[in-house]
């Protein structure tokens, strides 16, 4: 039968997924998957936070709850609490009612809804993303109707920030262009600007009338402090200018599969905020109508209860500390082996990921002969390491670095 679907080609393989599948199919008992961005315990297991379980139990015990449709912009309680978390309780922008928050499907959904809104309402449709950035960023923005360009970010020589290049590229951006800034724990490099660098970035962005679009996927997960990890965002909001912020609770509350996040648009006035809110709903309605309730209810339950909130900050710090400890252990292990090269970037970088600096050839050798899997850009997830597997990784890095220059 002649299929109407014959023109449908198979989609190209997603690079991260192909690594995951290759690892899955590897029969070696010592294989190590360092490619996926999900937290693992010291025992290598996924983690559901205690406070999340408690919140779920509380919700289940509350017989007054129902499953009626949420408003188009999501659970109101969640929206209020989520905005306070990123902006701070006493943010002037909140007090002046010029902040619009919409519950969305985790970070991706928040970015997509924000991008679609901007594609319709921002005069300039160019959006700058760091080079490199999270693999899904360019696709999200392109499908929303924006035109993606890159600004220099990572310097492979120093394995740090190419600050000069960044400022030059942003300085040359057309006025009104959108700039994606990762709020902390840059994915995939692990390289964040310093506080002083953020201030310079802010001044440049404002002087060029660029529109910042923050991607905040790791608040509290990077340094262990929710406030410290929100500093860059708050710095921009404090100057009274406009910005967009996409938040995700996938990592910092371990709610990956619940798809819970929010899009916040900071406007210059309450009037504008009302109109913006109204128009954002028009993006959401034909996409999925209203967002899912479960993750939002969990987050709201935890954020509004001071005991649960405190317990959360402790568990959150625990995760962040474990990752920092893995960094220190890996660095020490490489130093101990006298592995050629400067590996200090491992402890200078922050967050779940690090660019090891390994070449693609070295990465493939790591997979083929040492059964250690990472993405081809040399990115590893520190959250997937444990004290037991650090020596194995250090041995393998040492081996491939000495075999392939």
């Amino acid at each position, binding site marked *: 039968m002649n299929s109407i679907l014959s023109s449908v080609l198979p989609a190209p393989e997603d690079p991260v997924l192909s690594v995951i599948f290759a690892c899955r199919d590897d029969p070696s008992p010592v294989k190590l998957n360092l490619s996926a961005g999900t937290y693992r315990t010291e025992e290598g297991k*996924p983690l559901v936070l205690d406070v999340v379980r408690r919140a779920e139990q509380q919700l289940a015990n509350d017989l007054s709850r*129902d*499953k009626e449709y949420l408003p188009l912009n999501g659970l109101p309680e969640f929206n209020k609490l989520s905005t306070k978390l990123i902006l701070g309780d006493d943010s002037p922008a909140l007090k002046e009612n010029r902040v619009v928050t919409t519950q969305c499907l*985790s970070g991706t959904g928040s970015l997509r809804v924000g991008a679609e809104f901007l594609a319709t309402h921002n005069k300039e449709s160019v959006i700058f993303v760091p080079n490199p950035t999270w693999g899904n960023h360019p696709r999200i923005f392109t499908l929303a109707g924006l035109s993606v360009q890159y600004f220099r970010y990572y310097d492979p020589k120093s394995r740090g920030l190419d600050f000069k290049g960044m400022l030059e590229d942003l300085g040359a951006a057309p006025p009104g262009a959108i700039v994606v800034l990762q709020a902390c724990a840059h994915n995939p490099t692990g390289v964040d600007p310093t506080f002083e660098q953020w201030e310079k970035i802010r001044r440049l962005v404002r002087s060029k009338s660029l529109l910042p679009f923050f991607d905040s996927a790791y608040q509290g997960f990077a340094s262990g402090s929710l406030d410290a990890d929100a500093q860059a965002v708050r710095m921009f909001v*404090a100057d*009274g200018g406009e910005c967009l912020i996409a938040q995700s609770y996938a990592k910092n509350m371990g709610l990956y599969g619940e798809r819970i996040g929010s899009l916040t648009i900071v406007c210059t006035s309450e009037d504008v905020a*009302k109109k913006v809110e*109204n128009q954002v*709903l028009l993006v959401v309605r034909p996409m999925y109508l209203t967002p899912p309730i479960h993750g939002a209810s969990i987050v709201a339950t935890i954020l509004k209860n001071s005991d649960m909130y405190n317990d959360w900050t402790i568990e959150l710090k625990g995760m962040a500390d474990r990752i920092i400890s893995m960094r220190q252990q890996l660095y020490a292990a490489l130093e101990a082996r006298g592995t050629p090269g400067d590996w200090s970037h491992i402890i200078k970088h922050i967050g779940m990921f690090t660019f090891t600096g390994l070449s693609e050839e070295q990465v493939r050798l790591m997979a083929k002969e040492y059964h250690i899997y990472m993405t081809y850009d040399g990115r590893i997830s520190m959250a997937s390491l444990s004290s037991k597997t650090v020596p194995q990784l250090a041995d393998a890095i040492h081996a491939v670095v000495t075999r392939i220059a």
Partner: protein
Amino acid sequence: MASLMLSLGSTSLLPREINKDKLKLGTSASNPFLKAKSFSRVTMTVAVKPSRFEGITMAPPDPILGVSEAFKADTNGMKLNLGVGAYRTEELQPYVLNVVKKAENLMLERGDNKEYLPIEGLAAFNKATAELLFGAGHPVIKEQRVATIQGLSGTGSLRLAAALIERYFPGAKVVISSPTWGNHKNIFNDAKVPWSEYRYYDPKTIGLDFEGMIADIKEAPEGSFILLHGCAHNPTGIDPTPEQWVKIADVIQEKNHIPFFDVAYQGFASGSLDEDAASVRLFAERGMEFFVAQSYSKNLGLYAERIGAINVVCSSADAATRVKSQLKRIARPMYSNPPVHGARIVANVVGDVTMFSEWKAEMEMMAGRIKTVRQELYDSLVSKDKSGKDWSFILKQIGMFSFTGLNKAQSDNMTDKWHVYMTKDGRISLAGLSLAKCEYLADAIIDSYHNALLYWETPIEL
């Protein structure tokens, strides 16, 4: 902060001067950020430029949401909300199915993790949903010819399909019933898929304009997508008969059109999952390639969990694999992967023999209540209305909604005089009607039908 309600509020398009006093920037007392770090000097730029979003206008209010808001604001004790499409008990309360609570408790006890689902969703859910739709063991499933992706309820599933159509069937049109669910047009507009309408509702008979429907489907350019409601048509409640479905399938095949089913009420319309899937299965029997969007909002009461699926029945397993990969490619930059909670609930309920039976019983109960209320409303209308008008269309319609045949003026009278809230197209939600209120509603309908034009006619100026 501004409420959700889409009000026609201020639409000032003039740039406003920003009140600098209100900004109160940069003192270390008010800015927690400055407390965290101390340094000698920070220059904060005061934003004095007008907003880049200044020119945005307020969108028109959503007609259905507006009904609920107006209902809330009404203080009259007799008020009745027949606007929204969510099931209510006889006590007019929202209803969480017992089997859903059971499943959630089970999930809690098991301590399931919260890892990302694959882009295509929960495998157990995808398997269950396709089997519910086609019947377990159906050839399309056995032969692996169905590409199933978990989607965000009906809307999200329709949107994925619309994006696939836009990408792989450039220029192809979707033909939708007149009238249809309000959001259908928004979805296709947003996905940039052109659409047109086929005749469906006949106001003269308050029934199906079958000849008009067939003629319009025939006239559509070959290879058009024909959007069909699997059962319980929204907003009319009017479904084709089994014989009419056969003729619809004939004309669609004749014109090489592609059927595109929206199945939001399987099990909720007649009370039987299999009976409500008859139209879809008829098309599957024909060996056609077609799309089906599913939702578990109503039949499992999972409105807020956003759980549904898009199924594409293909002529080969190879085509199904390719289609699935492209649907994933559309989902990834939209929300990466779908939410796990609702999917697990469905998979648990369907996967357990006892819970599945319990679900079927609760679904029969919900559909049964609606049928009972229809009958009661009909009986009240017949006993109270002496004009001899034929009200039997109420019994012939099926599902949550009913087109009353009332026009806008008459619908306005329902609300203004009787405090009965409904949409202006004459649609009432029977799910929001209790037996206790049937008489009152009958009075309202009879009065509005016969007298509304008299009440609201503009007097001639002499």
